[in-house]
């Protein structure tokens, strides 16, 4: 559990890592693909694709339901993935990790099973101005049912959380705080340890949305000290339809069941049903078994690279790209927090984000344009949309050069 998983390894070779990703050899509109949309979803290394494939060809069966050999194999693989994930994020034990279909479900589970039963009229939930809709809308939905309200901690123009204001807003009627570890639009890395400390002092549970952190840096949920940590598999080299909710054991134990069905029960009677212990209490029905087998392989792959190496490599790419973009006239970077992650949102004077993205796509370059599921953040900056280039360790400085050159052409075309 305490193995040094996140050591830098002298053997990390970015081009070798890149070669692990079959999709990156593709072309688009006749040009070699430059994939700068990893914050949306990451590409998958061959080992992950093959793990899913192999599961279906050799071990496919339902989990925890039958005594036959295939079912044992499937259960071992599925629970093995849980254990690998738990270790990867620094959980105290696999029993603290509920496997979900992604971050969105993880947060909804907390909203409906942990928060809603405690929520009274007049209570509040605190989030920040930079949250993804997944860390806003579930709280809005349960607040609306309970007469509670959502409060918003402000950010600076640079895109940094104003920590003192966040702390001031941690007033006694706050029942839960939700903050993203890393902003999917700004790249801002929030000081989640400090925030968790402030929350814990006040007895307020803190949920950290780790969607953009787990794929890009060493994460240790226990040393963060939060109560809930949500993340999604498809952004961390894993299959779609996978993710997890880590929670302190006490929290999980006090949460009533939410989804009903097979696997989460101890005994079903029409006169009254008793439920399994966590994490199974929260995993009703047949899970995405093959997906989690793939996610287990993704974790092993990332551990092999070393998350410190991943972080270091992506910092290099970020610095290189930030520099290069400064040469593009009329370009403004949205989100300039110090120590940010490898995500660059930008605006170009006189060019609409969607036009930029479509024209870049015609050059083979995939960036995302739009609101990035963060309407309130767009409202804060007073823009309908931004373009976003987001990097992963498998990207290269050559790709950044192609991107910046294309952006300059495209900008001139639209001007």
């Amino acid at each position, binding site marked *: 559990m305490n193995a040094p998983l996140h050591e830098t390894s002298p053997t990390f070779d970015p081009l070798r890592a890149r070669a692990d990703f079959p999709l990156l050899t593709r072309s688009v509109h006749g040009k070699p693909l430059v994939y700068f949309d990893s914050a949306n979803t990451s590409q998958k290394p061959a080992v992950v694709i093959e793990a899913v494939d192999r599961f279906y060809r050799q071990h496919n069966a339902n989990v925890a339901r039958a005594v036959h050999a295939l079912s044992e194999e499937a259960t071992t693989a599925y629970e093995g993935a849980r254990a690998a994930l738990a270790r990867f994020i620094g959980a105290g034990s696999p029993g603290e990790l509920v496997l979900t279909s992604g971050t969105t479900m993880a947060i909804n589970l907390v909203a409906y099973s942990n928060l809603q039963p405690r929520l009274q009229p007049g209570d509040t939930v605190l989030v920040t101005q930079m949250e993804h809709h997944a860390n806003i809308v579930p709280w809005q939905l349960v607040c609306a049912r309970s007469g509670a309200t959502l409060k918003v901690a402000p950010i600076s123009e640079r895109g940094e959380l104003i920590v003192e204001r966040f702390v001031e807003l941690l007033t006694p009627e706050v029942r839960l705080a939700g903050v993203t570890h890393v902003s999917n639009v700004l790249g801002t890395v929030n000081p989640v340890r400090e925030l968790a400390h402030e929350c814990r002092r006040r007895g307020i549970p803190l949920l950290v949305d780790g969607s953009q952190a787990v794929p890009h840096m060493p994460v240790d949920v226990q040393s963060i000290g939060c109560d809930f940590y949500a993340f999604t598999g498809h952004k961390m080299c894993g299959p779609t339809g996978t993710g997890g909710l880590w929670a302190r054991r006490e929290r999980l134990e006090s949460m009533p069941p939410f989804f009903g069905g097979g696997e989460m029960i101890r005994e079903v009677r029409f006169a009254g049903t008793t439920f399994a212990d966590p994490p199974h209490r929260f995993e009703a029905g047949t899970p995405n078994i093959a997906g989690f087998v793939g996610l287990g392989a993704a974790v092993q792959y990332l551990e092999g690279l070393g998350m410190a190496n991943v972080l270091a490599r992506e910092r290099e790419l970020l610095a290189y790209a930030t520099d290069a973009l400064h040469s593009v006239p009329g370009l403004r970077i949205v989100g300039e927090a110090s120590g940010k992650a490898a995500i660059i949102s930008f605006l170009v004077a006189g*060019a*609409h*984000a*969607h*036009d930029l993205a*479509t*024209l870049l796509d*015609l050059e083979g370059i995939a960036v995302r344009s*739009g*609101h990035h599921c963060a309407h309130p953040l*767009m409202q804060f900056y007073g*823009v*309908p*949309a931004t373009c976003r280039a987001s990097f992963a360790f498998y990207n290269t400085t050559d790709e950044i050069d192609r991107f910046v050159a294309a952006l300059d*052409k*495209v900008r*001139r*075309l*639209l*001007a």
Partner: protein
Amino acid sequence: MSAIGPYRDIVLDHHRAPRRLGRLAPPAQAAEGVNALCGDRLRIEVRVEQDRVTAYAFEGECCAIATATASLLGDLALGRGRDDLALLERGFATLIGGGIAEIAELGALNALSELARYPARRKCALLPFATLSAALRGESRATTELPA
């Protein structure tokens, strides 16, 4: 870099220098077109006399595709009636949906036929049409996102 994909020269030209930008003096019928998800927002005003559009103006914060379409649509709309325009709206949707290669009556708007290959951007080009037809029907708002 020159004209590429749906960004043909005429589209770029109408994006850079939109025609009939602004507002009409009253009386006019107006509607707002809003694609909240992508952030396009425009207003179209028309004057209708004897069932025909006799004046057209628009303004808004839009992408090049929507702006150019709104600009080109002015040419198309003038002198036409509501039913005729509804038919052309359907024709335009078919064109950019890839269902047909060219529709003579759409004139310069045929330049947008490349959108057949960019489904995510079709709603940008449809927004001015939807907004115009809302204005003609006396409705105040239109959207081309998430067809109900």
